[in-house]
């Protein structure tokens, strides 16, 4: 195991060093200006101190600009690179040593040191708000070796540890700045302890958040002197604000509204594939979805291409596996030697249904949290399954109560976003050892084969990328052939912007990165 880990480390370090070099030597294509970048954002943040608030999407674009992580994520190469840490090495499977930059100061002017890494993690663990991100740390074994060297320890082997570290909720803060500014509570309204490219200026609750360029930033000086994040709850209004040039960037547009901007030279649509997946999860713990033939029939009867075009205006991708194409663990049907049922084939669907206990069809309820894309998907699925004699009753519910139903296992099938770049986390939805309540959903696949459970356990602790992919290939063969879930599509991360604004980076981890945005001449 250690040899494999060493190989993995070497690969990660090589990528890190290459990316780091690129980061240091790359020249910015602009001269910093006094302009203001105005961004239309969908909601008021629940706080500005990211370590004690939920990692919900209204918070991430703001946290992204205020706080740096130890490592960054490069979506193009699907790899991690340096950020506050310049290099790292695995000491063993659960301990990683990080060397930190020595030129980083917080917005309040205090230097960022190794002890601040431990403090940041400890603060998040104490708050309990980010258990999915910080639950993996073994704090007792995390150690400061010197001012700029820290060893982080995890409780178990974590193949996606570095990826997790690049997530926005794992942004670092400087303890001295937190304490000098009145403690953690004060940070929520007036954050000064981050080291990010922009500093906090003002928050008019429900209206806007103003940021200014961090002139002492360790990285490239941002082009825009000021950033105003304007809270505009309605998606149509955000797009109209862009069209009227009141804002430069509209985040989270409804994809259906982007058709009006396509082809317009004044605007650009930034479109980034993600490893998120919107799936139809079938409740395998009860009839009719405890029948494998039924699940296959449903999977084959859906017209994935048409649904993607109509419900998401084509802003997404289709996969032949429950893992999307952008997932690092994705293995195609061809490479994995499995039969995929996630394509439209009505005749094959009818043949599968004929082999099931319901050859003449059946009725079921399709549960989903109300959202424009889900509503359309629901209606499309309802029509398409009607061709098989399957009557679907749509049950759209408020997003706030959706989890009550799935946690209780009170559903026949539901549409849900499986959004975690770590495939091991996605696998939890298929793990029969985890109940609905613990999982807060899942597909209740109570008769999942033992072989699958063993492979899941193996995948969780496999650090070597090749071996990991091999294991995930076997997992995908078993799951995709049994069809407890059908991948409807993988939604892209999309935003619309004034076409003169360049350098906007969208990634699935960082949401939107303004720090390299600039106005082209």
């Amino acid at each position, binding site marked *: 195991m250690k040899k494999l880990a060493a190989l993995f480390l070497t690969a990660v370090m090589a990528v890190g060093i290459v990316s780091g070099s690129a980061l240091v030597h790359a020249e910015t294509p602009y001269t910093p200006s006094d302009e203001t970048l105005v961004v239309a954002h969908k909601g008021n943040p629940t706080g500005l101190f990211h370590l004690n608030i939920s990692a919900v999407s209204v918070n991430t674009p703001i946290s992204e600009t205020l706080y740096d992580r130890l490592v960054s994520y490069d979506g193009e190469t699907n790899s991690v690179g340096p950020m506050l840490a310049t290099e790292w090495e695995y000491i063993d499977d659960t301990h990683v040593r990080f060397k930190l930059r020595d030129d980083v100061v917080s917005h309040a002017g205090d230097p960022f040191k190794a002890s601040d890494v431990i403090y940041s993690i400890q603060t998040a663990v104490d708050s*309990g708000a*980010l258990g999915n991100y910080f639950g993996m740390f073994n704090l007792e074994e995390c150690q400061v070796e010197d001012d700029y060297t820290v060893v982080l320890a995890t409780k178990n082997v974590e193949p996606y540890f570095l990826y997790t570290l690049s997530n926005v909720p794992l942004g670092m803060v400087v303890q001295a700045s937190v304490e000098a500014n009145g403690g953690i509570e004060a940070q929520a309204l007036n954050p000064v302890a981050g080291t990010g490219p922009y500093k906090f200026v003002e928050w008019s609750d*429900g209206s806007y958040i103003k940021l200014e360029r961090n002139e002492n930033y360790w990285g490239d000086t941002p082009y825009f002197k000021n950033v105003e994040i*304007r809270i505009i709850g309605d998606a149509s*209004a955000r797009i*109209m*604000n862009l069209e009227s040039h*009141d804002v430069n960037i509209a985040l989270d547009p409804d994809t259906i509204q982007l058709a009006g901007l396509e082809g317009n030279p004044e605007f650009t649509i930034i479109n980034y594939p993600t490893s998120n997946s919107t799936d139809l999860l079938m409740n395998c713990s009860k009839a009719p979805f405890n029948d494998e033939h039924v699940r296959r029939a449903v999977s084959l009867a859906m017209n994935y291409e048409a649904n993607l075009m109509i419900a998401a205006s084509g802003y997404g991708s289709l996969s032949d596996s429950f893992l999307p194409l952008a997932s690092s663990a994705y293995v195609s049907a061809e490479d994995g030697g499995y039969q995929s049922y996630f394509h439209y084939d009505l005749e094959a669907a009818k043949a599968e249904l004929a082999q099931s206990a319901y050859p003449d069809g059946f009725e079921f309820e399709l549960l989903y949290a109300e959202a424009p894309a889900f509503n359309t998907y629901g209606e499309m699925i309802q029509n398409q399954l009607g061709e098989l004699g399957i009557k679907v009753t749509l049950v759209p519910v408020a997003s*706030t109560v959706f989890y*009550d139903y799935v946690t209780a296992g009170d559903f026949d099938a539901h549409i849900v976003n499986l959004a975690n770049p770590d495939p091991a986390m996605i696998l939890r939805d298929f793990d029969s050892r985890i109940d609905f309540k613990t999982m807060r959903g899942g597909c209740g696949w109570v008769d999942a084969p033992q072989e699958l459970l063993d492979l899941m356990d193996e995948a969780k602790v496999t650090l070597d990328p090749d071996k990991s992919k091999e294991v995930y290939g076997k997992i995908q063969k078993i799951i995709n052939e049994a069809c407890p879930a059908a991948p409807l599509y993988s939604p892209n991360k999309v935003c619309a912007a004034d076409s003169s604004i360049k350098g906007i980076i969208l990634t699935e981890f960082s949401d939107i990165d303004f720090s390299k945005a600039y106005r082209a001449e």
Partner: protein
Amino acid sequence: MLRYILKRILWMIPVVIGVLLIVFTLSVITPGDPVDNMVGPDATVEAREAAREEMGLNQPVYVRFVKYVWGVFTRLDLGTSYSNRQPVAKEIMHRFPVTLKLTLASVIVALAIALPLGVLSAVKQYSWVDNITMASALFFVSIPQFWFALMLLLIFSVKLQILPASGINGIRSWILPVAMIGVGNVGNLARVTRSSMLEVIRQDYIRTARAKGQRKSVVIFKHGLRNALMPVIANVGNTIGVSLGGAVVAESIFSIPGVGQFMLNAINSRDWPSVQGGIVVLAITFSIVMLLVDIVYTIVDPRLKTEFQARAKTKRKKGAAA
């Protein structure tokens, strides 16, 4: 009169308790655990339990209700927001002036348009002016506010680019939201003004004024409109209530940090203390507005003032006799 006002103020207490009871009951029977929204999907089990304990959600419902009502009446404490753990009263008071400004401005705009239109319609009854005015009134009453707001944005911000699409920076940024709410109210007020004017201009004293050779404008505005205003004033109270509701849409679309937007966010995140607080404040505001309308009524209509004075006199006499 003073006694009447005092009585009306005291009546607001059961109204507020009633409102609280309804909203509180709704928050309890609505499915879902508010802790989900307080701590988010990534929270640990310990954090979820701690949040439940901290917000008192593990106490029986009646205990929570009594504590809440006690807090509202003794300390003006509207609870703590589930979303950002800030006092709801502080959050609302910070936003309330914006909503009030928006509401009052829209009512003033609505009156400024509706009164002349209503009068003109009545004076020119069955003419093309009357027909167009009433058809427009019907149109503006019927159109959904949400759609109307987006149309205003599309025309004045996107196409013509003469007004800002969001925020409240300067007077220009108030035009669209105020117009959105105000124009929506024009129809109703114009129709009330028209029907009230039609009734008044058929009265004998109007005929007398005309016969005395008074100018038409004096007859219409001094003798006619003043007497026709009573139902309009009564309607203004309702219009303010409707405008407070309209502010929710306007604030959401035009990015205005008012109580409406605050409540909408709170509803979406099931932040019940914020929803309750918002409703209580709006209910109290509406009650105060209706009280003010009644007071204005007595000022405008001397008959009511005389009635109050007569009642007081009778009571004094009864008291003296006893």
